[in-house]
């Protein structure tokens, strides 16, 4: 009983589907695709024809990867004719179509292929600068395209040429997925690689990739100064040797080199320079007292220099101090330098005033024509006894229990 019912059910289904398919075929008979081609070439005239029995004028729905449109037919002698617009016929790729009927679908698709003629070579190259030494590279990507900006078919030959110094190389590639590419590895030397490409006798314009020097190697430093005296005025210049990378390329202009100067008192002074043709020049003012300098330069994490030792001799071994009668005007000087000349203006002279061993204030003045003159104001320092400490060019002198009035 159960089986019987199942048979009945299947039979019923078959019957229904037969009715359905009968109806469908009735409609399809009305419109049939006459065009047999499914491959076209871009920008040729493309038409789709359908046979038509009745007077209906269904519209055609067209879609490619750029967009979708709907066409109206022309009815000529019982043939529905659709002319594809340029916006579709110029672009390569699959075009699907659908005849818009009320009841059933009539669909299909065709292909538009590019003209195998190169109009432009769409080229991308990057990065525009790479580091010398063969590990860094720049990639060139070429898409040969036809007149309508359609990429050509795969396996189109593309030649990539590049010149570095005197070496010209030429390599053939075949497009895959519509493009060809090549990695251009950096040479050991810095300079400029000029790149171009060619496909089907069409040449690209010139592109370039700059090859920049790799990380610097160790270097040496030297110095230049006008004299070896610690006059706190002259300037000592430091120079590096020509800094190069491991391939012998001079490092890029502007490379930052930092000089560290360790002094006798274990403080670290700093100056810096940026390279020009591999030489970084840095300057430092002379100390104003006797000092030894140990100098070393670094390019952080990459390179360093030898150690340089400099000595600065004292300019003055002693200076005179005179007081006015009420001890309120203190004249320091003449401050004489290494040839007994008056020391250049601007040497710092410090005077610290103590009362009962506690510091009241420190006054700093710069020397003028060999002298520094201090005037102690009666309002700030009332009449009393004070201790004065006078400091200049690394020499310190103390006057205890001076009575100011």
């Amino acid at each position, binding site marked *: 009983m159960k089986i019987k019912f199942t048979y009945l059910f299947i039979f019923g289904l078959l019957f229904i589907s037969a009715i359905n398919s009968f109806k469908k075929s009735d409609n399809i008979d009305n419109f049939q695709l006459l065009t047999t081609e499914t491959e076209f070439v871009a920008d040729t005239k493309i038409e789709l024809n359908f046979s038509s029995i009745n007077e209906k004028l269904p519209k055609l729905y067209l879609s490619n990867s750029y967009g979708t449109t709907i066409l109206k037919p022309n009815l000529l002698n019982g043939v529905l004719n659709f002319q594809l617009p340029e916006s579709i016929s110029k672009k390569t790729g699959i075009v699907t179509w659908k005849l818009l009927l009320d009841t059933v679908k009539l669909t299909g698709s065709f292909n538009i292929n590019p003209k195998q003629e190169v109009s432009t070579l769409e080229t991308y190259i990057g990065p525009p600068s790479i580091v010398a030494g063969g590990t860094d590279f720049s990639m060139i990507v070429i898409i040969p395209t036809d007149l309508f900006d359609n990429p050509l078919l795969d396996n189109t030959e593309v030649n990539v040429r590049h010149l570095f110094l005197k070496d010209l190389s030429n390599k053939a590639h075949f497009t895959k997925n519509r493009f060809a590419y090549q990695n251009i590895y950096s040479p050991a030397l810095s300079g400029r690689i000029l790149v171009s490409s060619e496909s089907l006798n069409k040449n690209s314009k010139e592109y370039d990739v700059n090859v920049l020097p790799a990380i610097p190697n160790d270097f040496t430093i030297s110095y230049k100064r006008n004299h070896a005296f610690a006059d706190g005025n002259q300037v000592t210049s430091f120079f590096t040797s020509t800094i190069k990378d491991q391939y012998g390329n001079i490092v890029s202009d502007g490379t930052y080199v930092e000089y560290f100067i360790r002094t006798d008192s274990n*403080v670290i002074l700093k100056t810096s320079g940026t390279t*020009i043709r591999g030489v970084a020049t840095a300057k430092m003012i002379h100390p104003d007292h006797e000092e030894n300098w140990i100098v070393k330069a670094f390019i952080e994490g990459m390179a360093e220099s030898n150690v340089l030792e400099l000595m600065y001799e004292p300019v003055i071994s002693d200076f005179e101090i005179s007081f006015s009668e009420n001890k309120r005007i203190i004249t320091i000087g003449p401050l004489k330098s290494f040839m007994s000349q008056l020391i250049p203006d601007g040497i710092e002279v410090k005077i610290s005033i103590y009362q009962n061993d506690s510091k009241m204030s420190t006054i700093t003045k710069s020397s003028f024509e060999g002298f520094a003159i201090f005037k102690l*104001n009666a*309002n700030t320092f*009332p009449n009393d006894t004070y201790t004065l400490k006078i400091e200049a060019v690394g020499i310190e002198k103390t006057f205890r229990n001076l009575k100011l009035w």
Partner: protein
Amino acid sequence: MYKTNKYLVTALLIGLVFHGTSMFFTLESTYDALIHLFFGNHYAESWFEPWNFKWYTGFSVMGYPPLVHQAIALLSFIGGLKFGLFTVGFIGVILFITGVYRFSALLTGNKTVAGYASILAVFSSSFLETFHLFGQLPSIIGVSVLLHALPEIYLWIKTAKYRYLCTSLSLIAVTVTSHHVTPIFGMVFFIFPLIGMTIMDVSREKVGSMKAITFKIFLGTFLKLLKRIISFGLFSLVIIVGSILPYWINSKNNPITQVPIPHGSRDNFLEITSSGLVFFLIPWGVLLILIPYIFYRYFSKRYLFFGLSITLLTILGTGGTTPIPRWILGETAFNILTLDRFTLWASILSLPLFGEFVYRFVNGDLKTLIQTKFGTIYYRLIGGILAGLFIFMTIFTMSLGYFRPSQPQKLKMLPIINFLNQDQHDQWRYMTLGFGDQMAWLSAQTNALSIDGNYHSARRLPELTTRPIERLENSKFKGLEGIGSLQQFLTIPEKYNLKYIFSNDKFYDPILFFSGWQRLQQLENGVQVWEKLNVPPIPAILPKDDVPKWQKILWGTIPFLAVIIAFILNLNLLWFRTLKLIPDYLNFQESYSKFSNRILKVTHLWSIGLLIFVIYGIYNFYIKNYSHHSPENAIMAYYNALDFKEYEKAYELINPQSNLSLAQYMLEISVTDGLMSSYAKLDVIESFVTSQSDSLASVKVNTKWITPLEKIIKTDYKSLVKLNGKWYIQPEDLDLDLPPDQLYSSNQTNYFNQGRRRITTEQTYHEDILKQPVLEILSAKLVKYDNSYALIGEVQNIDNVPADVVLKGTLFNNENKELATYNAKYHIKHKLMPKEVSSFKINFEGIAWSKTQDSIPKTFNPDEFTPVEFDQQPTKFNLHVAGNVSGSDLYKDITLSNLNISSLSIKGKLFNSGLEEITIPQLLISYYDENKNLVWVDHQFIEEGIRQQRQIAFEYFLLNKDRILVISDDLTNCFVNGLPNESISNKLVPTRIINQTHAVLQPISHIEYKFIKIELNSYIGNPN
């Protein structure tokens, strides 16, 4: 028979000539006019679309009644925006003069008196101030139309003719569409007393004389008229709400939840005398003398309610001088309303009586009284004095804007507009600095969007609304709040797509530079363009708060409909009235037969009192300002002169016996550049005389200076001498350092990025885009100190070209939830040469005071820092570094030439070894522990600049922090230009010598930190 009122015609003619010519020189430099112009431009561009993208991050123009703006917009179609503005100004003048005339006629019932009042109104100092100094066009038009409405209201209540109801309501509608506050307060201060007066008049008609009116009669009349009053009240309420309904909906949806912006009208006028001048003395002007008369008259029976009104207005207008306005209005209203409008209304209320007084003085009973009592000469004399004072106040008010300009010099906008239109510069937001209200004029002319704006009620960003600043543009005048707000925008500009800043004020240059901005070019009008790299353009689609279409249509049509209806109705009536009818109120003329003797006496006494007050004020002013009077005065004057760069004035305070010539003094001043001398604004000065004898004084001067970067507190000791009874300051010693050479030469690598090589509008001409310089993060750590978190580390430019560095750090908790993100601000060298290293620190800054609005500190500190409040513990971080090729600000010739280390501080000297003058040197100080692990980064700006080949001394105090906790030093989430840091490092610097310069770290004797590293950065204010 109707006679043309020659006084009114005279007033109109004089008014139009006087205001019409002078406004071309005043209106554009007022506070508000250009804002209204900008709104006008909005309506001209999109009449029905209330959303404006140009200011803030977009705001709705439904926050301000539209009539005046739409009028400007409509007129701009004829002759441009400014034509619209000035024409509306003309209309305002006409409306005001005629309004005062009609109001005075209503009040006094005397057309001659009303004519006098209208002439006086032309020169009334409060009107002059509102129009020529403040530029409050909507307010003026609003109040003028309200004055026109008053007679109609009177007639409606008195006669109950419906046409008066219609005219009065139509005028109320015009008032509310031009200014929303005016009819609301106008109800209270103008219409209610008017109703009271109407009841009085009706009662008087009933009983025959004013004296016979008792309270009972008054009440009876009131009840009789109640229906009319209530109907008027209800209808006007409907009109007020209905005609700007979108405004009310908008204010309900976007309530003003902002920190109140301080306004001078809320100051204590006795303390802040400048506010007292602008918001009390000027608007009252000559009326101050007449106050006894005005109050006497207004408290007569007929005007009793006006008396109450003017009393209230006068009190409210005194702002914060007494606590009464605050009680009356309540805290919120007090802080939102600008109280100067009350004084304006009080002075307008006084105008009819001023007219009356002058009428009585010129040819009435007062003239007779004075002449019989004091004689003709005295009469002429005080007539002259009164007229003189009146003219003086007029001229003084008009010239105030000339002598104390409220705006920077007028700028040519064309170069800026051209710049914004060039090269797609309008794809980013821009900001102006130091433009004043002219920024509105710029915004009106360009399509580019600004992050700033000039209508503070519409601010939306929490960075702005939580601070009492009107604009970022003038943030330096707003102290801490201003600069604090500004620096957030400068540090993370990519959040707002802010790329260009037009700076008309050198003051902001340092903060721009140290926040990572670079100078682009100086435009022809002297405006400096600053640019920030690595900022994405504004997205094509911006969010907006849309409103329903019916609101847009209502907003766009109602105001002009109201005007047209009011025009038709009133014009009709005007004809009618001119030809036939004498309005009812003209029946209540007074005869002016006997001027009260007592009130003349009181006015005399009052005037004497005022005179004494003025003389005392002038004397006080002299004592305070005579600079040689005392050592304190001399010091104060000297510092003020320096602050305003009035060097000749400062020189006059220098001891003339010190043999210092003016030329030498100027030379000494001019060679000093730096944060202190070029960018500091004196904030607070206190001087203490430490010792003083007859001819000698020592003064300790404590000064606080505002600079764009930080607050500087200085203590100077000055000596003064007294010569010929005048105090003088002893000059300071000069730095006498003399570099060894006369001529210096040096070589430098320069860079130039020419952008697009071919002139094209193509957005990304890919061949012309430079590779982003490769940077490497050498170390990065998340550290915690005092409950706040920071990212510290070191970054190196490992490329071959100089780089601009933008560092963005983000903190996460254990569940990888983002907690905070911020950029590096001052603690980094933003420009790195190839292979240069910079230490950095990112502070995670929150939006200041967003939670505790009442705890805004009163004192100024631009370096104020509000740490983000974390509700969860940050445990991880990521760090994005972006490099962009930059050829500017690459000056590196600054060296550390001397050091002296103690346990508390580091003293040292910096030497400028190059050929540019360093304006602001900066120290970046990294702290290391005993194992040479980086634990903290600090910085210090040096106040003095360094001239070429010279040294300056500095002192840096070592930090006294508790041990800093390193939470994470994991570099896995560090990215350079979007690529992982580690892979870049492995590829480009595979043989890196780790911690190579640790050998040259500076040892220090400190409990927590054993080593430091000092890096130097410099800002060049005037590159050669």
